[in-house]
């Protein structure tokens, strides 16, 4: 099959918009859980809305990924590195689904109502302290996994862009 050189424009756009969204969700999430500051309330409201938006963005992204032809990694890259790249991409999709899902279910288990842009969202699970504990811990621990993955991902992208200059970084930027 004839592979393109770069990711399709729709995927590049979604990639960078999501990168900005996920990074801000992570920074806001980390700051708000320790802050007693007056803006904590506003940040938390934003976090929940943006988190639900992220869930839909990830679903869109998965649909795009499955329906698009994406560039292959250059042949010069060793097979084991290619396998790791595939694996981290898969892990990204898994974490990006589990983060908003655990956030959503944590709100359900805490018995807290959830509305996004005036639309009230249904509670999928009942109010329960142990389940709240499970999703609250998942949300925190998965966020650490996601951060580590992002650092690995950025390191690899910059390694390709700055050191190897093999077009891998460009494939997500432009022609």
């Amino acid at each position, binding site marked *: 099959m004839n592979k393109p050189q770069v990711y399709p424009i729709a995927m590049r756009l979604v990639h960078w918009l999501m990168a900005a969204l996920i990074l801000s969700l992570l920074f806001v999430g*980390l700051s708000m859980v320790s802050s007693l500051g*007056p803006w904590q309330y506003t940040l938390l409201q934003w976090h929940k809305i943006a988190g639900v938006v992220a869930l839909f963005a990830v679903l869109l992204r998965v649909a795009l990924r499955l329906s698009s032809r994406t560039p292959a990694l250059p042949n010069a890259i060793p097979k084991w590195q290619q396998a790791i790249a595939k694996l981290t991409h898969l892990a990204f999709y898994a974490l990006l689904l589990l983060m908003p899902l655990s956030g959503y279910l944590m709100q359900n288990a805490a*018995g807290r*109502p959830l509305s996004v842009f005036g639309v009230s969202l249904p509670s999928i699970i009942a109010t329960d302290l142990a389940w709240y*504990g499970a999703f609250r811990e998942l949300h925190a621990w998965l966020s650490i996994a996601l951060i580590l993955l992002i650092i690995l991902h950025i390191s690899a992208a*910059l*390694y390709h862009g700055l050191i190897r200059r093999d077009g891998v970084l460009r494939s997500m930027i432009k022609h």
Partner: protein
Amino acid sequence: MRYGALLAIIAAIIAAFVYAASDKRQPVSAQDFVNLQQGDVIQQGFRRAHANGFCVSGEFIASGALAEYSSATVFQTGRHPFIGRFSVAGNNPTAPDVKAPVRSLALTLLPDSAAQWRTAMNTPPVLPVGTPEKFYQQLQAIKNNTIAEFFAAHPESAAFLQWRASYQPTQSYATEQYHSINAFYLINNAGQQQAVRWAAVPSAASETLSSDSQHDSQQEPAVTDSLQQELFTRLAQGPVTFDLVFTLATANDNASDATVLWPATNPQRIAGQLVITAANEQKGHQCDALNFDPLVLPAGIQPSEDPILRARAAAYAESHRRRAREVLLESLTGNNSAKGAGDE
């Protein structure tokens, strides 16, 4: 050179995450606060503050008197269910409730609705200090037995001290008055806002607690839950009711300062009547799973800028997280040690 740039960028990203995750960015974090509140002996599975308490439930019969000030469902004429919790301040779930200096009533109204409203109210009408940092220092001063010096150094505590001097604890949760303390804004359909505070005002006549039961009496040692037992007995005779009374701020009142009492001449409205019909031990019942975070507000109610009010959500969430984790671990390991006195 290019390796240098690569390493510098990665190091900067890692540093940014570490900084955001650190709870040392601020003088007092939610974690610091809850660490201080929970004390040296951790009561597994219990709230880090107001640990001794129990669940109640009932209906709020809204009069409609607040409908012109707020679009919230809970103020529209009708009957709205609630889950509540009576408690006393303190981190020990087995400390004698009758001896606690502060008693509380927390409510989650319309629990199954998008228009849910939570409030956690205490017996004092004002706070001694106005910021979370000073409140933290106050708790430290209590711990270090330097509270007299602390109050002397904080003249804003005058209204609180005056209240404390005149306060007579009663013999029942049903005969206390519980205050929102912090101010909120009501928002009506036209978008107009009105700053308010509220209080649950008891319908039952009170009898002051004999000084014996408050202080160590030789004959009868105080028990963990004499106030709780009293309320259970009282409920067996019929519902326990409170009026939910709102005080409206005037142009002279500052909604962001909970250390100052608003004048008694301010207009008041009775939003409706709280009718408590049932009570249960906290463990295994609905109120235990809830965190009565006063910033869970429906459309039609908004928080004021009061820094104490704004600080409450993160601290309550941290306490909620800790006890939920303990209850989760206990349910996974089948270890019942965390269940304590309130268990059935």
